[in-house]
């Protein structure tokens, strides 16, 4: 990996985040609502509103407000919430922590299930196990998170009464309780990704199993096991890195929905309540943070790919 490649990738990330920030700021500027009214309420006096506008810089031109805001963001200052006057950064950081626990669990569960499923389907192509996996994946990709969550809640929390329905318990305070509260949200978020990723793994691996070098390996007299594990799997799973990284977008979207349904105080829930209350700084910060997470994951995935695939040292 050359420094030029790294620099190129980093510049791309920076450009991406710049465009995102412009977009986020631009769209929220179009809000018909007056932030000062939102904060002080309809009954505020014109003088108070004017004073607040001056204090918030709302009387300045848009580009100046953008520069101020971006300057703050770069230093980690996302402004203060319009609803409670608390710094946005601190609140969201705490919420992000909870969301990341959920994201990490979902990602891990997804990989543990999707890869074996995809491999089995590819190796047993055209046989009943393959057909079952592919039928299930059609169902999986077609179930929105809120439907999955509903079904899971119905079964586990109502019919069988095995798990708590909603709420959040910190893992550090009550580990068992925390895990019990995490199970259903994790299942919900990972299902759609399991369906998608296992399909991708299957099709990539099927392609690899039809290449000349796999044929050559088998005709060298190598065992099926070695051909699959040593020759096919690595090449078949490499593209999965990119696919999973791109799926992070779905994952983050799914987390927003699932947090809302299961009442988990994560960044998604913060965002939705901010949208409902038109709390600008929180919306801006939340979207920026999630987009940055996506960029970071994809940046790392590119590096991992370049490192693992000998053919691509720099693109």
């Amino acid at each position: 990996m050359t420094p030029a490649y790294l620099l190129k990738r980093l510049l791309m990330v920076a450009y991406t985040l710049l465009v995102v920030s412009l977009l986020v700021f631009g769209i929220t500027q179009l809000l018909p609502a007056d932030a000062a009214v939102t904060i002080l309420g309809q009954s505020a006096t014109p003088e108070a509103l004017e004073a607040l506008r001056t204090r918030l810089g709302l009387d300045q031109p848009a580009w100046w407000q953008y520069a101020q805001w971006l300057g703050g963001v770069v230093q980690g200052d996302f402004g203060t919430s319009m609803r409670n006057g608390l710094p946005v950064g601190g609140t969201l950081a705490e919420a992000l922590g909870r969301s990341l626990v959920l994201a990490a669990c979902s990602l891990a569960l997804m990989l543990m299930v999707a890869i074996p499923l995809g491999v089995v389907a590819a190796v047993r192509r055209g046989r009943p196990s393959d057909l079952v996996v592919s039928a299930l994946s059609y169902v999986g990709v077609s179930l929105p998170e809120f439907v999955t969550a509903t079904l899971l809640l119905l079964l586990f929390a109502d019919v069988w009464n095995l798990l708590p329905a909603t709420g959040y318990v910190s893992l550090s305070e009550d580990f068992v309780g925390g895990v019990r509260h995490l199970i259903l949200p994790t299942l919900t978020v990972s299902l759609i990704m399991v369906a998608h990723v296992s399909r991708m793994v299957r099709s990539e691996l099927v392609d690899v199993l039809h290449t000349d070098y796999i044929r050559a390996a088998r005709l060298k007299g190598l065992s099926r096991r070695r051909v699959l594990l040593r020759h096919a799997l690595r090449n078949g799973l490499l593209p999965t890195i990119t696919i999973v990284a791109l799926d992070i977008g779905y994952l983050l979207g799914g987390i927003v929905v699932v947090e809302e349904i299961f009442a988990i105080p994560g960044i998604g829930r913060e965002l939705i309540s901010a949208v409902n209350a038109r709390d600008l700084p929180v919306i801006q910060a939340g979207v920026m943070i999630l987009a940055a997470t996506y960029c970071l994951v994809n940046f790392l995935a590119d590096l991992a790919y370049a490192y693992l695939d000998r053919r691509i040292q720099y693109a």
Partner: protein
Amino acid sequence: MTGPVLEIERYTLDYQTGRSTLRVLDDISLDISAGEVVGLVGESGSGKSSLAWAIMRHLAGNARERGGQLRLDGEDLRGLSSSRLQALRGSRLAMIFQDPSAALNPTLSIGEQVAEVLVRHQGLSLREAWARGVALLGGVELKSPEAMMRRYPHELSGGEKQRVLISTAFACRPRCLIFDEPTTALDVISAAQILALFTRLREETGVSALYISHDLALVSRVADRVAILERGRLVESAPAATIFSAPAHEYTRRLVSAVPDPARRLIDQPPASATALLEIHKLGVSYGRPGFVDRLFGRASETTQALRELTMTLSPAEVVGVVGESGSGKSSLAKALVGLTPFAGEIRFEGRVLSNAAGMNRAYRRQVQMVFQHPDASLNPRQRIGEQLARPLRLYGLAPGESEKHAVARWLEEVRLPAEFASRYPHELSGGQKQRVAIARAFAARPALVICDEITAALDVSVQATVIELLLELRKRHGTAYLFITHDLNLVRQIAHRIAVMYRGDLVEMIDAATLDARGASHPYTRALLEAVPRPLRGHPAPSSLQGTP
């Protein structure tokens, strides 16, 4: 060992597609004795690769064996258990593939891929196997074998990769080897080196081999005996020395007469013309531009020079051949001439000077036409043949008194295709038919020069012969000049007046085709090329079925 090493006895194979079955191999019997190399020659669809897969016991899921025996050293291959089979493959029976780049795993080191065979079949430890691997790579004349073991396939050239695969195939001292077009993907000189290596190894080890190829001339040089396969049937099996001079079967005779033979010239001398049709002056083509970060790091040399200061002229009705391996710049030349790539230098056509693609006016576009290598790609898959033939007629006008429909039918007839093809789509035609359509499309513009970029490379040799015949006939009728780009030196020596030899972007030599045998070439690369091309092994000249006059 007395009996034959490999015995194929009355072997019959079908492919099942839906409800219908297709016979791929029909009652094949063929023996290979110890130390013997048998060439198996056939065109695409003849079933030659299927026979290789059958012997290796690696048949497709829809293959149905209808009968016959396959024996290696008397042992029945069809009845082997899968564990016996695994032990046999790669040790006593090994196979070498067409494309060495595809046959090596891109993410495993060369060393691992060589050593794993030894670990598997000879029970060596990884350390011992690695040491043996180094010796094996040295044995196939690869330089610095220790370093080579640690490299990855993409770091090797095509010839080097094929050497690695050959060393792996020979690693466990096989009784019989199967070669499936092992040099087809390589350039002429690497192919000759691979063949020389095989000849040496064969003498050293006394291995038997089945050598599958479409190239009769090459096989007649490599094999002791040649078997000819036509649509699943073995029509003839004869000593390599006599297959060209005394072909017994009618199909073999046709095949033999279709093989390009430089001794048999198919073209007359061009009409002497005072004025040149096309003059190319210091033509250069380069690809790539430095990106932002590259410039930041001061690396401006990312561009590659595909063609350097090429100068040549072409007379009306002249055929100039261009030969060279891939990357020699021959395709860049073609692209520059039809304005598909930016170029430096000048093109002078009928006295008009062009210094960029924008200067190519309608008259030039009409007069200079191009036929591409793959008709699959050069014909639009979603337009009917008639629509595609009508385009040049719409752009450049019809002959007086002729309707568009008539003109399309006439051009189809000129390339000997039925007029009803006008309403078909390209995928309904065979490869040779599609290339005829592409040729008709070029001629429909009534050009003075047609650039042919490897137009027969994707075709079978008998189809190639008919396409070449057609081209020569069209030239006679319309007085067209050709720039004929190919990697096949034998072919171009039959049909070109002059041959431009290209090497890594340079025109190294312009040779006169008629007097090449007498005078010889002057540039060392040309000499190496001439030496490397396998010419048909012939006792005396065979009767020609083509119409050209020598």
